[in-house]
């Protein structure tokens, strides 16, 4: 290679790096713009020119949202239902994944195929029958009613089975020699050895549940039972045509999951690549 060629490649490389960084900033700009707009007084928001930073920085929209609207109770509903979905999904998938991976029982293969098949089923097509079921149980407008149809996450059980399959058999054999019960083997060996994947799966299940829209939107008709993702788009009279107020509500709704991602970045990306069938 001659020197001019190296030079040219470095210039091209530098240009690509620069373009990528600029593209990333532009990509995230609408998020920045949403946050900045929510920190401006309402009259500043609708000015016909662009101001990238508020002239008067105000938190009044947040104070309004938190004190004058039902956003507090929507937060509570979102936290309760997302925690419920996460706990039940992860626990039931962990136990069942362990049984399929390590134990022998009738119809084991049939159950595994059923789980793999359910991966393909579009849950959205079941809304009519979910509604009939939940209404029949008298659970519309309740946390349980919001939680139940959201418990179908075959990905979680598939990932657990893979991880349990990969635990070396020696551990199990040694424990069996010591007369340890299945329950002990599960709780003392398999669960502790896979804490990492449990945390990762719990975080993403929580994010999925927090973000879900269609079912919570159908299952709830009373404003005080709405989750935050439904409430901020359905109760517009609470915010009127106040753009900045609406955006402050959006920031409040997105904050928990955005923070969860920024704090647990590595776990979140690991779980998401795993859920797509790529070993992380």
């Amino acid at each position: 290679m001659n020197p001019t060629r190296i030079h040219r490649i470095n210039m091209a490389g530098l240009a690509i790096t620069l373009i990528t960084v600029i593209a990333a900033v532009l990509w995230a700009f609408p998020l920045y713009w949403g946050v900045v707009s929510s920190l401006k007084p309402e009259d500043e928001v609708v000015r016909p020119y662009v101001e990238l930073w508020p002239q008067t920085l105000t938190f009044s929209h947040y104070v309004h949202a938190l004190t004058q609207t039902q956003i507090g109770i929507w937060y509570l509903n979102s936290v309760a239902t997302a925690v419920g979905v996460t706990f039940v999904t992860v626990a039931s998938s962990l136990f069942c994944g362990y049984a399929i991976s390590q134990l022998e029982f009738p119809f084991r293969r049939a159950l595994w195929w059923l789980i793999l098949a359910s991966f393909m089923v579009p849950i959205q097509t079941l809304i009519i029958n979910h509604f009939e079921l939940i209404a029949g149980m008298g659970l519309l407008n309740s946390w349980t009613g919001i939680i139940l149809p959201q418990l179908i996450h075959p990905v979680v059980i598939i990932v657990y089975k893979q991880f349990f399959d990969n635990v070396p058999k020696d551990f199990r054999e040694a424990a069996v020699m010591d007369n340890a019960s299945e329950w002990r083997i599960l709780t003392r060996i398999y669960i502790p050895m896979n804490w990492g994947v449990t945390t990762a799966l719990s975080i993403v299940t929580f994010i999925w549940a927090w973000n879900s829209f269609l079912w919570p939107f159908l299952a709830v008709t009373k404003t005080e039972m709405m989750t935050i993702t439904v409430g901020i788009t359905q109760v517009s009279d609470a915010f009127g045509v106040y753009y900045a107020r609406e955006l402050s509500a959006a920031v409040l709704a997105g904050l928990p999951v955005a923070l969860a991602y920024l704090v647990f970045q590595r776990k979140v990306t690991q779980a998401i690549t795993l859920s797509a069938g790529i070993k992380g």
Partner: protein
Amino acid sequence: MAVLLILPFVAIYGLVFIYPTIKMFILSFTDAPLIGAGDWVGLENYERLPRDRRFHTALWNTFYFVALTVIPGTLVALVISLGINRLKGRLQSLVLALFFLPYILPVSVVYLIWDWTLNFQFGIAMHLFDWAGADRIPVFKSTAWFMPAVGFVTIWWTAGFSILLFLAGRRAIPEEIYEAASLDNSGSWSTFSRVTWPLMWPVTALVSTIQLILQLKIFDQVYLFSQGGRPNDNLVLVYYVFQRAFQSNQGGRAAAVAVVLFVIVIVVSVLNFQLTRLSGGRRK
């Protein structure tokens, strides 16, 4: 012991998955309302569909939306991931986070942010129209612009996921291959077309099928951006199921539409599964 361990999962699955799925098929052969019993009408709900104009709109819009998002979204993510892959250390994590952040947000937040950004009167994006000397467009109120605009927002929202998979795929390519290519004096384009692209092909297929199946099931964004607009022009299949069942109180007819979508998604998934198996077999 095994029975105790699988019991919670099997009970949940039976109740909220198997039972509703079977009920959906039965419901589609009746004239039942949303809640309550109906009479058996045979194939009538299905025979109506070819003559149903709203069904046509919904089916067409769903495919249109798939065309607008799947391949463009996959390509955008591929290009971005190759750009990110060149970066190092903290800069790389930062840039990845900027691209990934939208994906982690709820659809309602994405909706509010873009509804504001593209607001006809005050949206910052409208300054771009002014600057280019073009007329401002009320994108979510115009039938022609609605699907492309929602498609654009959807790509912005979901690209982070595809980028992540592409990055994982790119990192799986051994560096020795690139060293060998540079020893052969291979230019950057021929390295891309002979090394990167062929080796990234399995991930590309994976990303685009995940996107395809995801976008066939679109509802949330279309519903939210249609509020105060023209929902009947913007119908997609899930939206039509929702409209028939929850707004017209026709559970049976809605279920027939749901079955159509159900079959489309299953067929696509099975085809994809067979294709990957075939190509996997050939590679071995």
